[in-house]
Structure formats: structure tokens, C-alpha cells
């Protein structure tokens, strides 16, 4: 099985080589030294090359071509080149070079080309040293493609031992760094050395352009093969002080497909053996001072996450709902808020958001990403700068008037204000259609009547409270024996009651004159009459008691004298109360 696959690949490469050999030599550039280091410790193949180029021709050269086989080029995720200045130990990588896709003529079709534009042309005999870093995703192919829960995951990586370049290479070497685990097999060429988890090819000398020597490394890789098939990031700016980031992930385990049963028992008892290929968690490195972090999916919060933060970063460890085996998928959303001043700056009257473009997750391959930036309402003159290749950051420029920030609160305030104004107007405006209609007039009259009845009731109530003062004076009498004070109280109440009954007269006469009050009038009149009677009785009772007190009669006798009056009083009170309630109900 493995053999068949290898053969296929070899044929493919042979074709490639044939194609390559037929291509013309491009210029007089010679690569005097090429060192390549390939890091395969994660699912991303990172190829760091140090290239020393010499101009051997007559004309000066201003750009250098990089060639990548098409099979790999489609997996290329990242490519940068930097000039190295200085020599020996004082080497520092300096200016970043512009790297652009190129399509030089007469080149074999199975290769993709990129050109690095030098800051100043390379004159004859001069040399330059470059650091080229390329990262490839999906270049580790699981092999076998399907494993069970208990199997370890093996992957194959293929590349060429000779540096594939349109220029002749004098000296070159290749180092492969593998994860610290089993190495199943690797292609053995001359000058091949395996040292622990490192494999070294070379040095090879004086190879022509387009030299190609395929190598395949088959090794164990149990690290997380997390692939985000789709990532949607939303950055929402609020000038109230917050940048809200929401990221929707659609994750799949991109390693060898899992087949057969999944046994939780095996996974729990021996997670290292029976679940070696699965990954449990992902780590996201968020900017410092991230707050309000949440982690959820379509059906609710996911409780398995931990946040650690310091002044440089906020690290969040998220566990999906279940461990992911090969081919298993999951989807989730994380969101967090960031302080506005850390990411939105102002220059020359414009504001700009400076934010990293990619996912903050460690070791996550993103197949497709959509980034949405939501600017506040009222933003104008948008422009975006996304210098992808140079740095993974983007800048969004826009103009925003700070006053626009107050727009929404203002709208809210206005809305509520108008609501109240409408209420006030509604309450105060008479909405009846016809002012002269009978029912309207009747209503007005009825309102008057009601007000009058209310006044009468109030007056009667006042009378009643005055009565009560009278009774209180009697109580005082029985306690203190002060007859004079009691008499004075009676006089005072008498005057008060007279005044009140004066007040009642015009009200009653009004009621008598108003037709709608006809049905209520008898009751009101009865009420007033009863009240007057009650007054008289109370006065009588009062004077009797005072009298008997003055005559120093015994309590028993007094009671006997008062009894009949008292009975009447009680009855009258009852009647008045009933009448009041009856009128109330009307």
C-alpha cells in the first residue's frame, strides 16, 4: 500500500524533473550557499532557508527568484524574506524584502515562482545573504489514512533533498527537525545522517539548476492536528471604550481518520495510549487586558475553559465538548472585549484600528477566514491596509466624529421625552368630538354633581370628626372632672358645627337645581338631615352628662339617663355610614 503510493509520487516527481531540466537558465546568479532547516514538530512545516547569492554575470540583478513545486505551493501559508546584514556572529536579519508571485517566461509549469526584490541591485561579483521563511499547511499527510483509537498516528512528509532553484547551487544542506518520537522510515541518500529526532541531508556541492532529489520521511506525530475549516472573526468598535471580538470556529481534526469504535473507557484509563492521536484542548493567546471572555457554541456555554492572564498576554485554554479524534469535527465561538485605547489610535484627524488578522490560537491551521470590522454608526472615509505578507496585522482607517457617539442615547432620550409629552397632551386635551352633544353636557353636569357630592361628604366627615371631639371632651370629663373645660369644648364644637352646616346649604341648593342629581338628591338630603339629628342628640347627651356630672349623680343613673339617647346616636351613626357608602358607590 505504502509502496504504491510512493511509486505514484515518484512518477510525479520524475515528470517534474523532466519538465525542469528542459527549462532555460535564467540569469547569471549563483547561490553559493544554501542551508535549509525544516521544522516538523507541529502540523505546520516551517522551512527556514539561509541563501547566499552571488552575481556572477555582467549585468546587475535586482530580483531573485524562489521556486516552489506546485504540489507544495498550494499549501503555502506564509512566505517572507529578509536581508541578513553583517557576518559571522554579528549577523542580524534586517530589511524585509518584498516578495511577490512571479510568472517568468519559459519556466516549467509544475513550479510556482516568487520573486524577492532587492533594495539595491546586486552588482557583478557582489553577494547577498537572505533568510527565507516559508510555512506550509497540510503538508504532513497521515499515513495510514485511517487508524483506530489505539493506533498511533503516522505522517509522511515529502520534499527534495536538493534545493530546487532556477540557479545553480554550490553548497547546500538540509536539516529536518522531527517531533521527539518514533521515526518509521526515511529516504536514505548519500550523506544522510539520522541523529535522534534530526535528519540531515548533505552537504551536496555544485548542483545544476532545478536539481531534484525526492525524500520522504515517515514518522509518528501525535500533536494536535487542529484545522479551522472556517473562521469568522468580527471586530466591533464602540467608542464608549470597547473593542468586542467574536470568533466563530469550525474545527476538524485534520490527522488520520478515526475508524471503528470510540471507547470512553479506554480513553479514560489510558489516554496516552488509547487516544494518543486525539487532542483535548486548544490554547488561544489573546491580547492583554482582555475581559468578558466567553466560550460557547450553538447550544450554550461550554464550561471547560481556563483563563490565565498577565501584563503581556491573556492565555485561554479551551477544551471542546469532547476530545477530537481524526476526522471529528466541532464548532464553537469565543468572544472577548478589549480596551479601546489599545487598538484604536488617532492620527491626522483619522482614526485607525490596528489589529492582528489571523486567529489567536496556537498551532491552528485556518483554511478559510472571514474578517468583519464593524465601525460605529457615523464613520466615514473608510480605507483598509492589509499588508499580509509583511506582518499579520491589518489597519482600518476611518473618520469618526466623537459627537456621533451621543447619537443613540440622544435618540433614546428624545423618544422617551416625546412619549411623555404625548401623554401629557393626551391627558390635557379634550378629545370629545362634539362639545354640544347631550351626552357630553350630561357628563359635564354629572362631573359637577359628583364634585358637589364629594364636598358634601367631606363636610359631613368634618362634622363627624367634630362630634368625636365632643365625645373626647366627655372622656376627659370622666377622667379629670373639669366641667368648665367640657362646657367650653361644647361651645367650640357648637360654633364649628354651625359653620359647617352653613357651608352645606349652598351645596344642597346646587344639587336641588341640577337635574342629573335627582336620583342622588334624596339620599344626600337624608344624610344631611340625619347628621343634623345626630348633632342634636349628641349635644343633648353631652349636656345631660355634664348636667348629671354637675349634680354629682352616680354612674349608673347617668347611664340610665343617657341610654335612650345613646341608642339613637348609635343608630344614627350607622345610618350615616350606610348612606355615605351608598353615595360613594354611586
Amino acid at each position, binding site marked *: 500500500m505504502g509502496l504504491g503510493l510512493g511509486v505514484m509520487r515518484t512518477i510525479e516527481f520524475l515528470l517534474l524533473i523532466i519538465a525542469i531540466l528542459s527549462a532555460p537558465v535564467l540569469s547569471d546568479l549563483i547561490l553559493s550557499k544554501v542551508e535549509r532547516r525544516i521544522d516538523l514538530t507541529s502540523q505546520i512545516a516551517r522551512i527556514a532557508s539561509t541563501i547566499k547569492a552571488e552575481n556572477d554575470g555582467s549585468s546587475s540583478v535586482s530580483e531573485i527568484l524562489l521556486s516552489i513545486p506546485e504540489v507544495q505551493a498550494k499549501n503555502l501559508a506564509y512566505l517572507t524574506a529578509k536581508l541578513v546584514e553583517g557576518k559571522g556572529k554579528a549577523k542580524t536579519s534586517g530589511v524585509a524584502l518584498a516578495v511577490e508571485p512571479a510568472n517568468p517566461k519559459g519556466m516549467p509549469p509544475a513550479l510556482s515562482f516568487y520573486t524577492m526584490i532587492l533594495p539595491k541591485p546586486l552588482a557583478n561579483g557582489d553577494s547577498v545573504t537572505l533568510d527565507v521563511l516559508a510555512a506550509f499547511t497540510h503538508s504532513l499527510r497521515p499515513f495510514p489514512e485511517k487508524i483506530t483509537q489505539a493506533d498511533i498516528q503516522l505522517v509522511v512528509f515529502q520534499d527534495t533533498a536538493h534545493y530546487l532553484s532556477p540557479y545553480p547551487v554550490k553548497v547546500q544542506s538540509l536539516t529536518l527537525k522531527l517531533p521527539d518520537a518514533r521515526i518509521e522510515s526515511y529516504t536514505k541518500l548519500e550523506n544522510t545522517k539520522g541523529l535522534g529526532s534530526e535528519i540531515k541531508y548533505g552537504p551536496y556541492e555544485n548542483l545544476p539548476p532545478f536539481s531534484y532529489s525526492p525524500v520522504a520521511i515517515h514518522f509518528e506525530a501525535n500533536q494536535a492536528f487542529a484545522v479551522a475549516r472556517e473562521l469568522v472573526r468580527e471586530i466591533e468598535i464602540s467608542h464608549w471604550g470597547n473593542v468586542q471580538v467574536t470568533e466563530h470556529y469550525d474545527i476538524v481534526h485534520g490527522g488520520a481518520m478515526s475508524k*471503528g*469504535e*470510540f*471507547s*470512553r*473507557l479506554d480513553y479514560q*484509563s489510558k489516554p496516552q495510549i488509547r487516544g494518543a492521536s486525539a487532542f483535548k484542548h486548544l490554547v488561544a493567546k489573546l491580547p492583554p487586558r482582555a475581559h468578558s471572555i466567553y466560550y460557547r*457554541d*450553538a*447550544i*450554550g*456555554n*461550554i*464550561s*471547560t475553559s481556563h483563563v490565565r492572564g498577565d501584563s503581556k498576554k491573556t492565555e485561554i485554554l479551551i477544551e471542546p*465538548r*469532547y476530545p477530537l479524534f481524526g476526522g*471529528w*469535527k*466541532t*464548532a464553537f465561538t469565543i468572544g472577548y472585549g478589549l480596551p479601546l485605547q489599545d487598538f484604536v489610535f488617532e492620527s491626522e484627524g483619522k482614526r485607525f484600528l490596528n489589529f492582528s488578522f489571523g486567529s489567536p490560537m496556537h498551532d491552528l491551521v485556518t483554511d478559510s477566514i472571514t474578517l468583519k470590522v464593524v465601525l460605529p454608526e457615523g464613520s466615514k472615509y473608510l480605507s483598509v491596509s492589509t499588508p499580509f505578507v509583511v506582518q499579520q496585522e491589518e489597519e482600518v482607517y476611518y473618520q469618526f466624529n466623537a459627537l456621533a457617539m451621543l447619537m443613540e442615547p440622544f435618540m433614546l432620550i428624545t423618544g422617551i421625552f416625546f412619549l411623555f409629552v404625548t401623554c401629557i397632551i393626551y391627558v390635557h386635551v379634550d378629545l370629545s368630538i362634539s362639545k354640544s352633544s347631550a351626552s357630553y353636557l350630561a357628563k359635564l353636569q354629572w362631573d359637577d354633581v359628583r364634585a358637589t357630592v*364629594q364636598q358634601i*361628604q*367631606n363636610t359631613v*366627615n*368634618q362634622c*363627624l*370628626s367634630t*362630634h*368625636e371631639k365632643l*365625645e373626647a371632651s*366627655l*372622656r376627659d370629663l*370622666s377622667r379629670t372632672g373639669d366641667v368648665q373645660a367640657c362646657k367650653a369644648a361644647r361651645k367650640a364644637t357648637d360654633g364649628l358645627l354651625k359653620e359647617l352646616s352653613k357651608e352645606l346649604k349652598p351645596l344642597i341648593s346646587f344639587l336641588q337645581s341640577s337635574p342629573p342629581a335627582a336620583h342622588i338628591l334624596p339620599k344626600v338630603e337624608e344624610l344631611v338631615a340625619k347628621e343634623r339629628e345626630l348633632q342634636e342628640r349628641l349635644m343633648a347627651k353631652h349636656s345631660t*352628662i355634664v348636667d348629671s356630672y354637675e349634680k354629682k349623680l352616680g*354612674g349608673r343613673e*347617668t*347611664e340610665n339617663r*343617657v*341610654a335612650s339617647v*345613646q*341608642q339613637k346616636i*348609635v*343608630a344614627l*351613626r*350607622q345610618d350615616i*355610614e*350606610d348612606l*355615605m*357608602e351608598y353615595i*360613594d358607590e354611586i
Partner: protein
Amino acid sequence: MASPESAVNGPTMTAGAASKSLRNAFGGVIAFIILVLIGVLAFSIRLFSVIKYESVIHEFDPYFNYRVTQFLSKNGIYDFWNWFDDRTWYPLGRVIGGTVYPGLTLTAGTIWKVVNSLNIPLSVETVCVFTAPIFSAFASWAAYLLTKEVKGPGAGLTAAALLAMVPSYISRSVAGSYDNEAVAIFALVFTFYLYIKTLNTGSLFYATLNALAYFYMVCSWGGYTFIINLIPMHVLLCIVTGRYSSRLYIAYAPLVVLGTLLASLVPVVGFNAVLTSEHFASFLVFIIIHVVALAYYIKGILSPKMFKVAVTLVVSVGLAVCCAVIAILIAVVASSPTKGWSGRSLTLLDPTYASKYIPIIASVSEHQPPTWPSYFMDINVLAFLVPAGIIACFMPLTDSSSFVILYIVTSVYFSGVMVRLMLVLAPAACILSGIALSEAFNVLTRSIKFQLPGIAGNPSIAVRMWRKENGSSTVVAPNDIPKTEEAAKEKPAKKNRKKEKENVEKKPTPSKTEKRLLVLPLEASVIAVLLLVLLGAFYVVHCVWAAAEAYSAPSIVLTSHSNDGGLHVFDDFREAYSWLSHNTDVDDKVASWWDYGYQTTAMANRTVLVDNNTWNNTHIATVGTAMSSPEKQAWEIFHSLDVKYVLVVFGGVVGYPSDDINKFLWMVRIGGGVFPHIKEPDYLRDGQYRIDAQATPTMLNCLMYKLSYFRFVETDGKGFDRVRRTEIGKKHFKLTHFEEVFTTHHWMVRIYKLKPQRNRIRGKTKKSKSSRSVSSKRDVRGKRNPWH
């Protein structure tokens, strides 16, 4: 803040004095603020679930409602009415638009739409989660209105405050509990309010509103039959007790006509609104009220002599008509097998009906009769206040108070039949307790006010009081002379005073007449007020505890506290649903017991065989049969239904008691009800349900046992089940027709896949032999697998 004592503000408003209008306005503002605060209280007490857990839909049915709301908000109202759901009841499907009470979903959908059109980007889920708390606030306001109509604003405020936090209602309306009852209780109380309002005012406007409110109730919940039976009962009561009036006619007749018309517009009700027995009472009373109205009318226009003649005429004709109608009714009713009653209604009328005939209804825990502690848990001190409220309603007995009495009596009965209907009891209990508390406070605070030195502030009350005081305790006016009723009533009060001091809470109730107020001694009143406040405080404490601890768990997430105070979350259900939704094909069919049907369709978006709708007993019985059968037969049943995955819930590892093994006997019963080869005694050893070594071989070989306990023994070496607290009977076995594809972290959900059929590799002769044996087996099996 909205504790019952605030309701005292109500009574003070009635005080007639010079500053009455100002006082009224002031009282109105206070009452308004209190109502707003009650609304806030009702909303916020239900947020414990969001604070303690998360903003998530709870339990089972809410997931279905949530899914329907999602569909509605996505596809619009017309698609919703026409929605045929092919992801459930496979292969039958379900017509959602015609079988669902749409009130809740339409409400939430409308809220969502309005909010989004205002550029407030709330998700459908958020709206669904918070619908129930919002409507609880509405419900408490409706309770205020209703009680205000019955006994004045003071009682109204108290009732609203009580309803805002009654545990029984909280249990159904915490944030996330997105179920019909959440809006239905509001609709119920509001309909009753409008009925009472119409009854008190005789206004056709309110009568129309009443019919509309009834329509909303019909849209929301099957419990609308309670309204359409209770109101006729009340009307009948009024007629019988001679309280017929034109107001009663206006309150009732439009409701029946408009209400029935509107109700039949709801697809799930349709012609049931005139065909089923639940509605007949209303029509019967409709006829009666017309006869009575006619009688009153004729009485009005005829002289007494003529009237007697007319009575004989009408009675004879009326009897004939009645007989004819009754005969028709009986014929119609008798023609239907359940006598025109739906199964659930019959369960209410005959509490033993479901356990005899419909195990599916009986198997639901919320359809069991409640226990006494559950009354205390759900309505707490209200249970003691209700009798006092009933007495208060009798003095004086008005149309509206008789309605409240009827409401409490019927709802107490219904709550006694089904624990779920405790929910109908709760508003009634709150209203009556509100009345009781309010009246008690009324009496007590008046007594206190009267006896405090600064009485001048409230002259009219003071006067009334003074009169009584006069009659009973002044030296001048002895109480042996007056022979009026009043003094006679006051005498026992005086005598009882010492007794009452010991038993203050009960005291206010008997003395609660408006006209003849007793004045209680100052100390007794103060103590009584304090005790009532204390009682209210107990109630509040209990309600908050119930809201926070007892009723806020969403049931899809479980938590436990570890010894060091940490919180351990059991999120297994969502783990499994999430796995299903991401790692199986979108058209795969998942078989599980019906409890998990709604959740599977909503959370995992996979087709299920049966769900919580339980409309097709045979289908559920098929799944029950498969679960109770040996592996091979089960495989055949499931395979014939295109099932790819089987999901079982197993609590044996962590001690989660409501798992499938504990529900298994219901599967056997329901399955056996349709497929007689499943016999319950086969699964019981001496009448006992057990899974240990004593268990029957049928039990140990059935699919449910095997799927639950597959490789369980390897966890601890003994196979100790922490729910059943025993070692399992059969420990080491292999599955031949199923393979484990997923088990959640705490083993609570286990998902198995049906193994594909084996390739035929045998020789030709053997093959024919085996096929013959298979066919013969099939004949023998007969009804075992209904899909062959």
C-alpha cells in the same frame, strides 16, 4: 421592597378627607411604583438560573418551542403554519403548524421581530430565555387587576406581590423555561380579570377584550378548557343564586360566541371548539342564560298574573327544547369512544384513568398526583392564608368574589390530580392570600392608627373607630344596654381578646367586615402586624430559596459541589448532542426513548423516531419494544426504521437517577401495551425490578441493559451501579449487532451505532437454509416488528 405590608397604601386611599383627591393621586403614584417594583421583582427572581448556570433553554419541551421559534423567525409565519416536520417521528413526520399551540412561539417571534426592527440585535435564544420572566411580570400585574376588581387595590397589590414570587409559578417560568405555561398563566389571569371587569361594569368593550384574551389563552395552552368550564360554572352559580343581571349576560354571551369563533381559528383546536365535551358546558350554560334572560325580560313587560301564565308556557317549551338538545348531545358524545373527552381531560375527571388505560400519560412525572410536601414547597404559607381569604370573600359575597371562590375550589381539585396543575392553583392561592393579608392589615393598621395619639391625621377612620370604641370600652356608655347587632358582634371580640393575643394571626379573619369593624387592642394589633410581616418574610425567604436552589437548574446541565467547595459541571447531554450534530451525517436517524426526542432534534439536529409530543402510542411502543428486546430483534426493528444510532442515558457511573434503566419499566409497559410478546413479569423477579444477579435473563439480555452496561464492569472491576446501589447482574458481554461510537465524559449518554449487515459468505445450501429459517422466524415473530 414589594413586601406585603406596602399594600396598606391601598386602603389609606379610601380615606375620605379634605385632601382626598391629593391623597388619591399620591396613592395612585405609590401603587404604580409598587407595581413597577413588583414587575421588576417577578422578572429578577427568575434570573437565578441565568446567574447560577447560563442563559440556556431548559429541560425538554422548551427545546421544541425554541426550535419552532427559530423556524418561525427564519421562515416566516406562513411557512410556520404549513410546516411539516420530517425530522421527527420518522418515518411518519409531524405537522407542526396544526398540532402546536402557537401562542408562545408567536409571542416570542413577535418580540424578536420588534426588537430586531429597532436595531437591537438579540438572538432568538435570548428572547426565548427571557420570555417567561417577562410574562411573569405581566401575570402579576394581571393578578393585581383581578384582585383589585374583587377586593380593592390593597388586596390587588398584595396578590401581585405574592404571585410575583410564588414558587409553583417560578418552577415553570424561570429564565430559560420557555414553555407554554409561562405565557398561559398570564393569559389565564388576564382573561379572568376581563371577565370580572365586564361583570362589574357591564361594558361590551371589556367583553370583546375578554374574548380576545380568551383567544390568546387558546393559542397558548391546552389549559384553556379550564377557563371555558370555570366561567360557565360561575355563570350558572350566579343564576342559581339569583344574581342574574344584564351585566352577567354581557360578560358571558359575547365570550362564548366570539371566543368559540376565535378558538376555532387556532389550527390545533379547530372544530374541537364545538365538537368535544370539554366545550359543551359553555354551550349548555349559554342556552340557560338565554332562557333566564328571556324570563327576566318577560317578567319585566308582563303583569305578575300574565307572567305566571308565561312561565308555565316557557317551562314546557323550554323543557322540550332542553330534552332535544340533551338527546343530541348524548348521541354525539356516545358516538365517540372516549365519550368526547380527550385522554388528559379524562385523567382529570377520573384520576385513575391514565394509569389504567394510557401508560404514556401516567409515565410522566408531572402527571402524578402531588404529595403534601409539594403543596408546602409550591405555595408555602399561602396554603394557610387561603382559607382566610375564602372567608373574606364571603363577606360580603359579590359576583366577583364568588368567582374567586369557585376558582380556588376547582383549582385545588385539579392540583390534587396532577402535580403539574399546581400551576393553575398558584394564582388563585395568591389572589385569596392577597385578599386575606390585605384585609388583616386593614383591620390591624386601623386599630393601631386609631389608638395612636396622632389620630387627627385620619379623621374619618378615627371617627368610625371611635364609635366602636365608645360602644365597648368607655365608662360612660355601657355595653349591656345597646341591643343592636353591632354591639352584639363586638362583645365576643372583647371577650376573646386574651385568646386572640395568643392566636393573633387568625384573629383578623373573622372580624373582617367592612361595615362593622372591630377595634383590637393596640398591643395585639402591633404583634399581629409583626407576625404577619414575619409570615410574609418567611414566604419571601422560601420563595427566594426555591427560585435559587430548587427550580433554577436547567436539567441539561447538572452541577455538584465537591468537598473543597469547587463546582463540578456535568455537561454530558450537550456533549453528546454536540457530538451527534457535528460527527454524524445530517440525515442519520437516532433512536432514543421519547424523553430525549425534542432535545435531539433541537440540539443535535438529527431525525428521531419518537419525541415528547407522544402523539403516536404505537410508534413509541415500537421503540419501547426494541429497547426491551434482545440485541438481534432490536437490531431488526431499528434497522427496518433506518436507524443508524441508538442513544441511551445511563447514570450508573455518577449516580444520575433519572436514566433509562430507571425508566425502563415504562418502556416495557408501553411496548407491551401494543406488542403483547413483551410481558412485564418477564423483567421482574418476584415483582421486583432489579438489575443485579437476581435479575431475570430477559432483563439481562435486553438491549437497554446491554447498551447501558456495556464494558461498565471495567470501570471499577465490580460493576457497581451507583444509582441502583448494587452490582450489576451480567458483567462481561460483547455486543454483536451494535458498536459503541461515543460515550460522554461521565458516561451519562452512550451512543451506539448499528453494525452493518454481514456479508453473505456462506455456501449456497446453507444460504437457502438460513433464509428459510429467517423467513420462518419472521412468521413466528409476527407482530414483533410492525415495520415488516
